[in-house]
């Protein structure tokens, strides 16, 4: 399942977790405020690592907006390419 990670895919993943439609995801929201828990983060992490993003749980968990998550994922993805 290591599909290439795109912003749309990222939004879709978040939307699935948050019971939202992808276009309803506000990237300025924080994981904490949306009721994200560590198991959800771990599940997403597993998926994104499989898609080639070299990130850790701590790195995701310490960031306070989804935009920061995407920034991190984009950076790490680029490093690998």
């Amino acid at each position: 399942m290591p599909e290439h990670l795109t912003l749309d895919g990222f939004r879709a993943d978040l939307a699935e977790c948050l019971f939202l439609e992808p276009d309803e995801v506000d990237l300025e929201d924080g994981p904490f405020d949306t009721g994200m828990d560590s198991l959800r983060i771990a599940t997403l992490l597993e998926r994104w690592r499989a898609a080639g993003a070299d990130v850790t749980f701590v790195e995701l968990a310490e960031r306070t907006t989804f935009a920061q998550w995407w920034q991190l994922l984009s950076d790490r993805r680029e490093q690998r390419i």
Partner: protein
Amino acid sequence: MTEGQPLLAAQEGIWAGQQLDMDSPAYNTAEYLRISGPVDPAVFDRALHHVVAETEALNVTFGTDDTGRPRQTLAPARTWHTHMADLTAERDPHAAALAWMDRDMGHPADLTRGPVFGHALLRTGPEEYLWYHRVHHIALDGFGLSLVARRVAQVYTALMAGEPVPDSGFGTLESVLTEESAYRESTRYAEDRVHWTGRYGDRPPVATPAGRSALPARTFHRHVTDLDRATSDRLRTVARGLKVTWSEVLLAVTVAHLHRLTGAREIVLSLPVMGRLGSASLRVPAMVRNVLPLRVPVTSADSLRALAPQVSRELRAGLPHQRYRYEQLRRDLRLVGGERRLSGPGVNIMPFEYGLKFAGHPSTVHNVSAGPVDDLAVNVYDRGDGTGLRVAVDTNPDLYTRAETAAFQEGLLALLTQALTDPDRPLGRARAHRDILVLDGGPLPAPARPVLSVIAGHAARRGGAPAVEHDGRVLTYAQLFGAAKDVARALAVRGVGRGDVVAVALPRGADAVTAVLGVLMSGAAYCPLDLGAPAERGARLLDGAAASLVLTTGDLAARFTEHPVLALPSPGTGDARPGAAPVSPGPADLAYVLHTSGSTGHPKGVAVGHSALAHFVTAAAHRYGLRREDRVLQFAPPHFDASVEEIFLTLCSGATLVVRTDDMTDSVPSFLDTCARLRVSVLDLPTAYWHEVAYAVSTGAAALPECVRTVVIGGEAALPERVERWRKAVGTSVALLNTYGPTEATVVATVADLHDPGLATGDVPIGLPLPGTRAAVLDGELYLLGPALADGYRPDVPDGARFAPLTALPDAPRAYRTGDLVRVGEDGRLRHLGRADSEFKISGLRVQPAEIENALLDHPRVKEAAVVGEILPDGTRRLVAHLVASAPAPPATEVRDHLRARLPAAMIPSAVEFTDRLPRTRSGKIDRAALAGPPERRAPSAGSPLERTITGVWGQLLGTDDVAPDDDVFDLGAQSLQAIQAANRLGIALGRDLKVAWVFQHPTAAALARFLTGTDAGTGEEAPPSAVLPPTALLADTTLDSGIRPGTGRVRRAPRRVLLTGATGFVGTHLLARLLTATDAEIVCTVRAADAAEAADRVHEALTAHGIALDEGAAARLTVLPADLARPGLGLSHETLSELAATTDAVFHNAATVSIMRDYATLRAANTDSTRQLLRLAAVNTTPLHYVSTLSVAPPTSLAPEVPEEFLPLHGGLLHGYQQSKWASERLLEQAAERGLPVSVHRLGRVVGPAATGRVNERDFLWGVLRAGIPAGIVPDLFEDEVWTPVDFVAASLVHLCLGQGDPMATGPVFNHATLPRVRLADVYDWVRAYGYPVRTVPLARWRESLPRSADAAATTLAFFDSTARDSSTAGATADLGLGRVRSDRVRAGLDGSGITCPPIDRSLFFRHLDHSVRAGLLPVPTPRPEVSAK
């Protein structure tokens, strides 16, 4: 080094928890990593030390500041070592490793000194290592552990590769503290608080399978099961389908399972959360974890598909507020202390596999302990090897057994499997499994005929036969029928007839019978009114029943001004007015409306039809065997349904109804005499009154008249004890019919023959249904069916649903649900178990008060008993027994001991109250509602001195003067920290050890005072706090540390080294001498002294003082060690202790501070803790430990007729600190024995001087009495007789039993040294007189008053008597010393053939003692000189 910084909020919670039980190891958390591959232990050790050094949280110690607030100090951890062991030689290396871990987990961490952690590297295979990591929860949470583990892997890998160790990246504790205080100042904090206090402001009830709460225990039960891979995969798939996480599925199934177990409509879970998202603490190993409450409404119809999204929503609503501390929320909601709780069972999901590699070698992580378990916790771990999940259910052993733990888990996993297979299936209990049992009374013996036509038949055929007799007046059937017809006509004239209800307000008597029949003849139904009830109630019933008219007497007519009244006798309406003839009722018409007090307390009118009445009368008359010759007593007033039975059964049988007069029940004897005079043959009595009759008959106070052939009882459960009394006194020739039936099923539904000789003792069935009636038992509850059921309620009431089709039976017949719990015995007969609504759940048990009441009534002095369950404001559940006892009332402790022998612990009432009479309802039943009322609040100034001390301390802490003895301090806002402060201050104020846990468990001053004085039973007795230690506290104080277990096995051999304590005492010197002569061993004596020289001097002085000389060989084998048994480690160095543990072949623990004055708290270190320490020492090498105890630990004869050679349970006779400290030691030894340690206990009586020399024990209490009394010419009457043993004999016996050929352990560890005949005090005083001292025996109080206070020798003795007199002014010392029969079979058997004997303790031996005392100047020279002294 940073000085004393505050704790993180989460740490404070842990710190407070640890204060509840300072020695508890429960806060140790641990995990181990299994490393597959070679490990270099030295490098690993370096890595561990490197990581520990850089992890701040592991380099802390804890203390308190001036205000008692905890502080932590950052300082490098004390020197520590990694435990390295190669276990590959073990048969099961892995099991050996786990066993080692288990032992290690049993050691409590010392927070004040550190280190708070421990490491081990255990080799379990050629290329397999377990790295074990234990940390006190105050330092790290689960995430913190993972950070440390990750770092250790990183450092080890770098070291192995020879690369520089990368930076840890750890943040500082300071940064977490700063973040935390910033949070507390933020608007976010305020918002979070609003969220939680809003969501939980209603303080939802917390349902758990145990049904109660307890403080966390020191250990927990764990039941582990692995979910196979298919189930684990299915879990994830189903979760995805439901758009939830798999953890939410597990939460939902746990909620459903708890609902199934508790029936609660809402489950409140406890969810540990990491609490680190978006926080600096993500990079700081620390204790940050929080707990979220999670409340989920649930019904048994909920499916997983319905429940899981609900759980998910609730969880996601709470998660954004997860930083708000759980402890703070409890404070906000005032849910601290007592049994208050915010949330119940925990669900802890740890989905993270570390996936760590150690120099390239993979590892898996395994949890050992997640910390203390409050109630029950479901922990879910990833197994880490790709095979699925592991589910570990942890429970608090104080609340659940191992079996219950396993059953919980099995049920949970079965439900999980079911839910995963079919997510749409309801998760509640499936109805298909309900068992239903039906008992059928069989067909009626004859068709049911309407009662009026049967009575008319008797009037027509036997008109002259007596129908009713009352107070000398007789109505024949013809007269009765005629008078009734008159009434019917009079009613018809008033337009009253079929479909109407006529109230009958008449006292018991012929007129009432006439009126009842008259109303029925008019076609109307009658509704009897209770003339004793308040007018307002009467009026309400009249309105409710829609009565058309009130039938009453002229005197009473004025009461019913609001209603049409017909006064009897009817004012001569004559028989005119044709056209107004009464119309007979049909079978479908109502016969009567009778009011019962419903469970709600509001009376309900039960409407019974003619058909039901006819069925009942036909069935019951047949079943009771009534004959026309019978004379049946009408006992019940008309408004009781028993009167229906009495009137209609009698009249339909053509028998005579004998109406009782009001004065007939003045006393049972006069009642029975009157029955005899009236030639009553059938007595129909309320069970409550019959209980009195049975008691009186059984004691001979009254006799059952010979004319009585049948007694029918009913109305409440018959007490087995009274049934037994009755059967013994009356035999089985008189029929005793126990009837059961609600008014709704027309008087009686089931009947049992209690005179059946085949009934077992204590068995009181309610029998079988009457003919025509069926009984169904569903879920233990009784349902009644058949034509005798009432029509319903008039007016209809909301719980009319009790009449409903029973769908569990074919065709769903109409049934009445009784609310009574029953059981069907093997004989097919019903047994009544109690009311479904009076069942009280306590300590996880369903308790029927009746069962406890029956056990109470077994006590010979208990006359009446009522047990009620109470739920105190703090949520604590307790049982209270209200008793009426014959004087003198037995002490509450005796009552509870009596119960303990008969019932499980949870069923022993925590309070026993004596009263002159029990409150009763108007119908004569015990008024439980009145008993269950809460105690009145007393004023703050009220209370005993002890209560005021407690309220005073709380007042200071809470800053208020308004703390009353019955106030729950946690309701007043007390917090955990304040409870800890209160315990400390109270400990100082009262001069005793006071555990923090006690303050939590007894949140009112009154309760704490009761607990501290051991008068928990509410006897009102108040002992001075210093004199009496609470027995329960004693129990709590005598838990043997779990680490004390048999160590390496040992070879039994002739002892080469024996350790003896207390060698300088009276018994000790003789024991020492005997050990030296009877063995070749070195005897090591511990002596309290500053140095070795002083210690040696003390031993030699003691030997000399007791006239014991050692030969050179013996003296050479004596080693004296300066020690102090009251100090930790016995005041010996580590090396000395280890050496003693390794080389000692036997320990004789004889040392004790003997003081009848001092309280337990001050004797505990020397007398009890010393035993604990010596056990620890002896356990190392499984060395036998022999303990010298005292017979004064035994209960007095008033509590136990016999003193067994067994360990003794806690009892009320342990009044003095010395007794308590010795009992406490025995309790420790008992636990040691249970664990397989070789111990023995030797109880001695009064040890007197050696038979051989005549010396005396000058410090003995009795010699003190003689020395004070002989010069004054008076001696006190102290006790009847006592066990005396000469010291040389007891020393020889003891050494022989402990070291002789036989194995003392094989015959049981307890020995009572009481083989000699007891010595009578009267004989002793006679010997004193014969010796030449003219003494008078006087009562103790007189002796004390007459004796000059200055009598120096008796100073202690007098003080002792003063102290005992305060405890109990009448019993004096007698109660302390009087023992029942002392068994000493084991001692006798052990000495058999040993040649060790003792001369009798007689006058000649006693004279030798007196001779010695005179020689030593202890006693004056007697005048005249004794004539026999030289013999």
